[in-house]
């Protein structure tokens, strides 16, 4: 589904350019569960954003479903993100003026779904993340774990083929983090490819493959062989 070759990302800084990625190559298959680990500042989030078509690489190539991402316009890349990729952030980033249900409806509305379809899909997703009873609550009225579950539901709203999660349990306590990890397992089991950037070893252990990064390069790759 995703093929990245020799990705380099350089950020211009007043003190001189900083190379966040120094030639990362990887491929992600459909319905794969990949974890990316490494110390802070090693380029994990930068890689995730490039894989999610949010940020262009300084050099190297990226293709999504066979399409070269660098050749796409802003609108086309936005459409790829809207329809094929879901994002879950460490700090949830729910829209504070909208209810949980409305937050889940936002990407659907943007994708042009009719109101009735949106309502049906939102109810289905709230049920999926176990928050039907919180549909009309605003983010400020939700706990951290509930807000992250709403964020997962929002990321799944347009049935993406790839879900990217950046430290999804970083703001949560252990028990709540486990609930989110279990929810992500379920998302993966239902056929969505998952890339999780995490410091949390417990989450990484759930992935089929783990990339270890340091100083902008992948230093190790481990595969978990599951019994089928």
């Amino acid at each position, binding site marked *: 589904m995703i093929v990245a070759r020799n990705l380099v990302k350089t950020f211009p800084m007043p003190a001189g350019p900083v190379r966040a990625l120094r030639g990362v190559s990887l491929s992600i298959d459909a319905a794969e569960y990949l974890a990316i680990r490494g110390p802070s500042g090693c380029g994990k989030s930068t890689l995730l954003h490039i894989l999610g078509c949010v940020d262009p690489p300084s050099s190297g190539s990226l293709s999504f479903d066979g399409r070269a991402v660098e050749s796409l316009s802003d609108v086309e890349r936005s459409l790829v993100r*809207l329809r094929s990729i879901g994002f879950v*952030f460490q700090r949830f980033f729910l829209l504070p003026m909208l209810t949980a249900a409305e937050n889940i409806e936002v990407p659907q509305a943007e994708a042009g779904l009719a109101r009735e379809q949106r309502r049906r899909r939102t109810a289905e997703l709230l049920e999926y993340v176990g928050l039907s009873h919180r549909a009309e609550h605003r983010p400020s009225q939700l706990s951290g774990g509930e807000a992250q579950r709403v964020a997962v539901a929002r990321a799944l709203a347009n049935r993406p083929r790839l879900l990217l999660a950046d430290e999804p349990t970083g703001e949560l306590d252990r028990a709540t983090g486990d609930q989110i990890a279990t929810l992500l397992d379920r998302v993966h089991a239902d056929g969505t490819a998952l890339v999780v950037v995490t410091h949390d070893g417990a989450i990484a252990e759930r992935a089929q493959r783990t990339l270890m990064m340091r100083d902008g390069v992948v230093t190790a790759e481990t595969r978990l062989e599951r019994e089928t």
Partner: protein
Amino acid sequence: MIGRAFVFAGRNLLRQPGRASVGIFGIAAVGALLFDMLLLSRGLVVSFRDLLDGIGFDVRVVASDAAPRSGPRLSDAENLTRQIAGLPQVDEAVTVRMVDATVDEPRSHWTIGFELTAIDPARRRPWTIMAGADLSIDSGQGILLNARLADALHARPGDSIKVRVSCIADRAALAPATFRVAGIAEFPFDDERWLSAAAWTHGVLGACGGGSSVPADMIMIASREGYGADGAVAAIRRIRPGLRPATNEEIVARMQQQGFTYFRQISTVLSTITMLFGFLLITVLLTVSVNQRLGEIATLRALGFSRARLAADIFWQSVLLVGTGGVLALPLGYLLAQWLDRILKAMPQIPASMHFFVFEPRALVVHGALLVMTAIVAAVYPMRLVSALPISATLRNEVVG
């Protein structure tokens, strides 16, 4: 997309009611001033034209370009008026003389001075009767008083007053002549404190002993249907090239270039400043709002909202703020215009029936267009901020922050 962006912008405004209120009421205040400046820019011109047209005569003949009573007068006015009245382009021509007159107020024994207009009997009457009766053709000594003069004299229709009239400056005043008050009238060029009256020419000239040799201030002419005011003016210029005939339109244009130009300039300067304030207010509010929502905007971009889509959100916020404020500005501006009009009309020599602030549909259209322009220009900088927002760096800063 427009509908979604509009609804989204509305919700973004509603989430910060304080900010939205500041924007809306700020624009309402600024818009009210802008609306008033637009009414002022042409108010006197429109009002003056209405005043001239309302009198019923569409051409005025004077001896020079000076204002009535301040320049040379028309000599041999009787023959001149007769000659002009005989032109096929002219339906009616009347001689107008404005003379000084006094009356001894019987109760206080004070002498009250006023301006007496002597006018030839005519079908058209440049006044409006408020009480009593109009002058009849045969009422040689009838007189119409304006309400302030009638009050000062404690005179009512049917009363007789003794008027001393002075037609010629160096001639000794004659004994007062008795005039019968036919009615109370409103004269179009009176200001709110002016004391004035009107009577037929032969009565006034008889009272001052001047006869027809007294020069006239002006000849008012009604053009004949089918020829128009321009036709009448051209015909008068042909037979009497030394005169200064002018249509109402020409008089208005002359005033527009001379006396009224100050108001237009003031209006232009103040309109520009008010628009600048409106622009700054909305730009600052939207920029602050964008800066407060950077994380949220970056999130929406990551979720698949395009740059154009989020810029549209800012644009519609600007339109909603300016649009709502602009609508509120109309009644506010109307009330403010009434108040300012009363203040300005208190100036001396401003006819009571003239207005500085006059509504025209054109003002509404220009007001709307200027506010739309303000909304667009005010949104440019915050839209640029949104469009240029780096998604990854912003999300990272939000997490680190």
